């Protein structure tokens, strides 16, 4: 890869037109607005799992994945952090068409791809409930968690307060 290319990647996972499923994408957009231009951190949106998700991480030293975690309705809106070593599965890390993320990562590493270690793949999960209804906006409790989730990602990235761009979260 190119010298000086970004080494940290933030991925907002999910489908932005599927109510709570899109929360990862909404949080990633908020993170992107907050990061200073000079941060050197890439922020992308994805609605893929499995092999394609693994492939998106090649060449990065560190990845933060933001995704929805399916939970009962009264559990919605909580934010949890864990890493790929702890991962069973979030809503979007796997694909019904190929493999889940842990399998895909093992495959990538066995083929010599430059992938981050499990500990360097952090997952910020927002518990969500309605992931089967088309809609462009998450439900109120999940939407309310977006701000805290974005702040948490910024903290994890270690961006000093003074360097953060002024931002608004919707």
């Amino acid at each position: 890869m190119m010298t000086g290319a970004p080494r940290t990647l933030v991925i907002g996972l999910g489908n932005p037109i599927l109510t709570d499923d899109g929360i990862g994408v909404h949080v990633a957009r908020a993170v992107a607005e907050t990061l200073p231009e000079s941060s050197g951190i890439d922020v992308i949106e994805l609605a893929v799992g499995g092999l394609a998700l693994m492939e998106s991480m090649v060449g990065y030293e560190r990845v933060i994945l933001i995704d929805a975690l399916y939970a009962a309705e009264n559990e919605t809106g909580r934010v949890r952090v864990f890493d790929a070593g702890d991962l069973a599965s979030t809503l979007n890390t796997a694909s019904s068409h190929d493999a889940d993320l842990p399998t895909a990562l093992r495959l990538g590493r066995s083929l010599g791809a430059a992938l981050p270690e499990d500990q360097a793949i952090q997952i910020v999960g927002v518990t969500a409930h309605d992931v089967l209804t088309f809609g462009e906006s998450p439900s109120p409790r999940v939407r309310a968690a977006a701000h805290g989730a974005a702040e948490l990602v910024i903290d994890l990235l270690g961006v000093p307060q003074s360097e953060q761009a002024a931002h608004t979260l919707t």
Partner: protein
Amino acid sequence: MKQRITIDPITRLEGHGKIEVFLDERGEVANTYFQIPELRGFEVFCLGRPAEEMPRITNRICGVCPEAHHMAASKALDMLFHVEPPPAGKKLRELFYSAFYCTDHTTHFYALGGPDFVVGPDAPASQRNILGVVGKVGVEAGLKVINTRKANHEVIKIIGGRAVHPVAGLPGGMSKAINEEERQFIEKVARDNVEFAQWSLEIFDQIVLKNSVYVDLIVGDIYTQRTYYMGLVDENNHVNFYDGMVRVVDPEGNEFAKYAPQDYLENIAEHVEPYSYLKYPYLKKVGWKGIVDGKDSGMYACTPMSRLNVADGMATPKAQEAYEKYLATLGGKPVHHTLATHWARLVELLYAAERMLELATDPEITSPNVRTIPTETPTVGIGTVEAPRGTLTHHYETDERGILTKVNLIVGTTNNNAPITLSIKKAAAALIHDGIVNEGILNRVEMAFRSYDPCFSCATHSLPGQMPLEVVVHNAAGEVIDRRSQHCAL
């Protein structure tokens, strides 16, 4: 502080794939049900929007085949706006679609379908995945799969304008042309694809066809059912993924119907069962007779095997050769062995690669004339392509301003709902006795539907993780006597 979270697939199964098996007093299979989650509100979401948004909205309903939805939607818009794309625009779409087929069929064979054969149907579940395939065939295989995916995704991005969710399809053609430098790259990828597809067929030959246990499994009764078959064909009755007429053959292989995709409502009706939101499309002129095969049952399948059954051949030379070998080995058309779908998929992979090369070397492919601007008032649009997992139709109606008033999609997995259900029923009935279910049996039941490359996220949208499946066995009194779950891909 770190917290370990385990999300048990059982707890996540609400809304995921579920097979329910009901036994009689003797512990034999009385009935089976296959259920997948309902996705709500798609039509409501779309109504009132400008129709030209559909290629970008519908490619969001599926994480597996957005390219297929993008193409079906673009074609539906051509008809809606009464506009024909110029030849280069059409060719560019088909080139894009061929690259998509190369990556999609490759992924299914090596990551999902292949492990059952390459690693073995009775291997531990932890080995029946793409890692197991690499372990058996070698690291070279893994590298080839990853490189094929990467190169074709780059082609999709070049032509489609964006990775994963393409944006280039518009009513009347494509939003941008490709230049000579891009064409040269695409040509190289296509040449590599042809080589890779031939190599994959060689692996299938070595590992599957030379193993009599596997061949017996493929042609055995458990995975055999005699239904109607459907698929798109070109003017020579050759397989075509992007365009053509819908051809249907009966269980004896005779042409039953051939119609323009726009006439689907005259040929297809949908049956509804109370236990499943997913409808069962069937041939209107034959009628719905339930989940049974045979000539009197209107059930049809549209899979790679189906497409090879409805066609008179393949439009490219190497794929035609592979097609002839496939038919000669399996006893001629129509092939009724569901597991042969994996082989048919590789024949199609070779065709997609060859077609991609033809188009990439077509003198017209770099023409800047890739779009006809629509000028007519929009009305009704119906567009059909062959998605890798089956015939995909988009149907839109609008007011005179082009604002959507009706949206209907029939996706590949829905078309295959009845044959998938029958395949599961047959496998369960043959394998489950005395109420006993174990992992090996469960995997062999799953193999029945895995060959269809079903896309729940497409039929229902939800991206359900590892496609966890739960099999619930009920006794004659309806009580749950066994409950097993496992992931298909792990």
